[in-house]
């Protein structure tokens, strides 16, 4: 089973001081998929990726990349895994060519052609100093370095952060080129939902250090639904709807976003909204934003809701 999974995490938990940043994080990503890891800033995405990459030890739990324990990755293992750091760190004093030389020394396979092609796609001259590159170009060099090592697995920490539209396009093209063969796996964290919708076939959403969504993009879309309810005294009870992801006021209506809308849920909806209940079309980013907005809400809301969640589980 391990061999089918590019990434596997079991019960990953990480504290910073007494704050729990990653909480009981389970994840399994099959080979050949492109997974977008979504979450607000501070949801624990970077910490999770660093633990997966063996750059940070989990307080407890374990994780495996390509079947190898993250905390014991050998240089050979690392050569099979590409990783770009948030902000695309590179040494500013090196030229693009020097960066390549510095980087390639340690990788047994080096596809110089791919490096040059990627760099060209971002419109970079190899003789340029990293320090003088734009953010998008730096991202290009960083990607080129990672790709040229021909890894089997790519872990990208917010690669699109601060990129202009052209660089974003180039990034997406590069990523799609990479996973062309269907055997290579990508895990990328991002805030650009449109790009994730395009590029990813799987989506994972982190809220408060917990993984609440981990499925295919289409499964996610089909299981999240949105409803509008006319205001009435009963609408105060929306919080009791099972599977409520988020609710917000829109004009005279309350829009609720629900996960796994089943008969029980529909019954609850009808009880509250009655005939005014109206199902709305929902886009991918709306569905994600509902999850992310939820994490913005106060903890009291969360805790009361989680209690309800438990009740619901007990009913199941």
């Amino acid at each position: 089973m391990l061999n089918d999974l590019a990434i596997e995490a079991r019960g990953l938990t990480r504290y910073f001081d007494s704050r729990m940043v990653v909480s009981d994080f389970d994840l399994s990503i099959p080979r050949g998929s492109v997974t977008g890891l979504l979450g607000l800033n501070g949801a624990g995405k970077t910490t999770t990726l660093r633990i997966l990459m063996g750059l940070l030890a989990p307080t407890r739990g374990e994780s495996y990349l390509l079947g190898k324990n993250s905390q014991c990755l050998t240089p050979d293992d690392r050569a099979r895994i590409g990783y770009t750091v948030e902000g695309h760190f590179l040494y500013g004093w090196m030229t693009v060519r020097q960066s390549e030389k510095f980087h390639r020394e340690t990788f047994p396979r080096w596809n110089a052609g791919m490096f040059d092609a990627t760099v060209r796609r971002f419109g970079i001259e190899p003789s340029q100093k990293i320090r003088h590159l734009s953010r998008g170009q730096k991202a290009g060099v960083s990607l080129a370095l990672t790709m040229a090592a021909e890894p089997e697995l790519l872990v990208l920490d917010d690669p699109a952060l601060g990129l202009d539209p052209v660089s974003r396009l180039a990034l997406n093209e590069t990523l799609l080129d990479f996973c062309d063969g269907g055997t290579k796996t990508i895990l990328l964290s991002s805030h650009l939902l449109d790009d994730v919708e395009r590029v990813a076939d799987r989506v994972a959403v982190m809220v408060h250090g917990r993984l609440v969504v981990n499925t295919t993009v289409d499964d996610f879309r089909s299981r999240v639904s949105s409803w509008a309810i006319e205001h009435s005294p009963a609408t105060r009870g929306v919080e009791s709807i099972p599977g409520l992801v988020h609710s917000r006021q829109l004009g005279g209506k309350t829009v609720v976003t629900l996960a796994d809308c089943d008969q029980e849920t529909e019954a609850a909806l009808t009880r509250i909204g009655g005939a005014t209940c109206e199902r709305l079309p929902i886009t991918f980013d709306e569905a994600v934003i509902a999850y992310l907005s939820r994490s913005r809400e106060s903890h009291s809301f969360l805790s009361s809701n989680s209690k309800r969640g438990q009740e619901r589980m007990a009913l199941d």
Partner: protein
Amino acid sequence: MQIRISVGNPQSIYRQIADQIRRAVVTGELSVGEAIPSVRQLAKELVINPNTVAKAYGELTRDGVLEGQPGRGYIVANRKNIYTKTERLRRLDQVLDSLVSEAITLGFSGDELLERLSKRLEKLLPDQSLP
């Protein structure tokens, strides 16, 4: 033909692709036997995940719209009924059920629904007159 997709659309990308091809086949923009772009080609063109294109093509193949040709990619299939009559009816009823209930929810009368339906049909299949 030109396939266009938009992200941030209530319809998922694979659905958009499938619908556009389906429509092109129905309207005759794509003729039977005509080759359509390969999964890789289309994914590259649209800058989307190839799995998404593959999923759309898969659905269309399953529904008999497209036909996979070993070594040649996909071509538009002969319109043939790959399902039994019963199955076809079941599928149609399924779509009709949701259509009708949605129309009622939205407060349309039966006539209004029929009228709009016939307009659509005229547009898509102008050569077939309604009974």
